């Protein structure tokens, strides 16, 4: 044990003498950790937005067969029937059920001139009462019956021409931006909201809606609410909890990002392990005589192996920590958006580097360090003492 500690400390203390080659290993491993952490933070951020959307006491009603808000369609009379369903919360005169339209509007980003499919949601007066997390953070709510709009905080950051007070032209229509809203980081923050009736006439939708979002008296009322609607012969609808609807939408993209992220990181790690092997091999070769001397003095093989492995893992840990920090500094909170193929519209989200990802990066680094050190360590222990003493 004493031997192990002594040789290991000796090794670690001499790292500065082999700075160039040690730096190569550190940079190589740090690079892998940056890529691993940054790519996975995309999936993490996207998932956080979609899984953070909705509460268990809200339900979304769509036409039977529709796979998203975008493809759903409900006539005005259907919406009136849905509002009579049992289990919906009521507040005085107001029924907590909001008939909504969900369309897209082409809009350039602040960073790019090409058009993006930005979601435009037409809502009624109930919408903000149904979503209790909704609050205006700048300007004011739009007036119903006008062409005013309010924009989500994420959308306001990403897209050009959405500053409060500006006018927005789209085709023959003009919209006036009057406020910015927040919804606790949910999907809606990437959307633009306007009056549903205005949107019906602008997009020529007659008296029709696409979905109804209802707040129920409690999460337990969901079954009653759903059964009443799905067994109602006047209607052909499907009912889902809001949380489930959005969670399902995150699956395809997060899976794709994780496959690509892990795939690239795995290949890169392989390269970094080979790089670490070279570094440690160089370290062992340059100290062949010292190691042989130690062995001749009676230090045993395990002590030599552990010392080489520790050195390699120490370098890896430095690389892993540097990589994690660099990824955090460069990407955490970076606001961007991607297309959600289920709704054919943009979802705004921010890269999210969580503690879990940083730990994952560090563990990956240590694993690379271990495998990088293994072969050179065994080589060092097996070094024939006489030959090594004669070397160089």
């Amino acid at each position, binding site marked *: 044990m004493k031997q192990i500690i002594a040789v290991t400390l000796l090794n670690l203390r001499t790292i500065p003498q082999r700075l160039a080659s040690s730096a190569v290993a550190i940079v190589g491993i740090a*690079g892998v950790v940056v890529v691993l952490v940054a790519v996975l933070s995309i999936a993490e951020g996207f998932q956080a937005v979609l899984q953070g959307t909705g509460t268990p006491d809200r339900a979304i009603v769509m036409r039977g067969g529709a796979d998203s808000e975008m493809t759903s369609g409900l006539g005005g009379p259907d919406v009136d029937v849905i509002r009579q369903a049992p289990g919906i919360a009521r507040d005085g005169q107001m029924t907590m059920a909001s008939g909504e339209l969900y369309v897209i509007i*082409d809009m350039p980003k602040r960073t790019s001139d090409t058009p993006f499919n930005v979601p435009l949601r037409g809502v009624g007066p109930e919408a903000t009462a149904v979503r209790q997390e909704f609050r205006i953070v700048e300007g004011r709510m739009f007036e119903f019956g006008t062409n005013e709009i309010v924009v989500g905080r994420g959308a306001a950051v990403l897209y050009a021409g959405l500053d409060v007070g500006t006018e927005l032209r789209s085709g*023959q229509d003009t919209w006036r931006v009057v406020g910015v809203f927040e919804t606790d980081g949910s999907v809606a923050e990437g959307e633009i909201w306007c009056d549903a009736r205005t949107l019906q006439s602008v997009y020529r939708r007659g008296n029709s809606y696409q979905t109804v979002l209802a707040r129920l008296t409690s999460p337990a009322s969901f079954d009653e609410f759903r059964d009443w609607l799905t067994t109602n012969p006047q209607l052909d609808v499907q009912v889902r909890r809001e949380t489930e609807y959005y969670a399902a939408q995150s699956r395809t993209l997060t899976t794709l990002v994780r496959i690509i992220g892990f795939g690239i990181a795995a*290949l890169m790690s392989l*390269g970094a392990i080979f790089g670490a092997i070279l570094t440690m091999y160089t370290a062992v070769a340059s100290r062949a005589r010292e190691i042989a001397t130690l062995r001749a003095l009676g230090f045993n093989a395990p002590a030599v192996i552990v010392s080489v492995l520790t050195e390699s893992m120490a370098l890896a840990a430095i690389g892993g920590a540097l990589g994690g920090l660099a990824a955090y500094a460069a990407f955490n909170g970076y606001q961007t958006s991607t297309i959600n193929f289920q709704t054919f519209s943009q979802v705004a989200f921010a890269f999210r580097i969580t503690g879990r990802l940083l730990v994952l990066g560090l563990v990956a680094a240590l694993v690379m360090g271990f495998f990088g050190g293994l072969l050179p360590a065994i080589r060092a222990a097996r070094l024939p003492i006489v030959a090594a003493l004669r070397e160089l």
Partner: protein
Amino acid sequence: MRFLPLIWKNAWRRPFRTTFTLLVIFVSFLLFGVLMTIRTAFTLGVELAGQDRLVIIHKVSLIQPLPVSYKDRLTVVPGVEDVTHNSWFGGVYQDPSNFFAQIAVEPEPFLGIYTEYRLPADQMKAWLADRQGAIVGRDLAERFNWSIGDRVPIQGTIWRPRSGTGNTWEFNIVGIYDGEPGVDRSQLFFRYDYLDENRTFGQGLVGWYIVRIADPSRSAELAAAFDGMFANSSAETKTTTEKGFVESFAKQIGDIGAIMVAILVLVLFNMLLVVTDVMSYSVTERTSELAVYKAVGFTNVGVLAMVLVESVSIVVLGGGLGLLVAWLFVQGGDPTGGMLPAWVLPQRDVLLGVVLMAMLGILAGSLPAMAAMRLRITDALRRN
């Protein structure tokens, strides 16, 4: 030339080290090939977009439909060769995770404009004879084991049929189209007249128009002319080249290309560090040998060249193998099972890879080579 065996011997003086250097380079260029393929896949095959094709969509957004009557007005514009329209169907086959595109088209003008989709003449005849007929890409047919004559039910998510049960639309597979690598062979095309006669609403509306023009250099002028024709109507339009359309759609996914290039720069930079380190170590190690070479008459330039050739050949050997394995991997097909139809490693990128190998080899060898060249015989021989 006659020094090649010498260089080869030098390169393998430490087999363990050379092997792992080669492996680092191998993995780096394997990554190069794979990352470039991912990058191409996410540009949705923009290289294959026709230069002579313009796409016309509703000005407000792609989801807004256009009237079918625009076709006649577009056809008569001078400079227009052919006009057709497409409509997105957005159906689900068995399970939403089985996503593939289904598009309602007019068979004859569609295949006349999209000549990259190749359909045997007898299958084309069968399609024209069968209103419920549909053609599918080779990849899609293989994915679901479809063959000609199969009847395929698809659930409409937007459109529901007038007759039949619920949302189910039935299609007869009458043909399987093929195309060069990179052509999207994962789509289903069916007849617009079948859709339009059977849907419960939306008659007389189409998704977007494709116009083939005689002279691609006039595309900007014609695009402006089309948009002018429909200005101030209830459905104003926005015309772009197909390339511009695909590019701007690819951007909606995010700047995958930039991410891939950033990763690649990191990978190649690391590789450069490793190779430079190894080469300098190996030059330092044989200082006295190099001095002997010079003493027996090698010129400074000769020694420089020898070290450079060694480093370039190591990089080209490892990198070439890496790129070859990447190419073989890509030939195996899209690993996500249909989500990335344009899964090819473009020739242009292979060429770029070879150029990068040569450049990185020279770069990695240049510092050690300079050191070797500057070596003074007397100093070097005395050093040991």
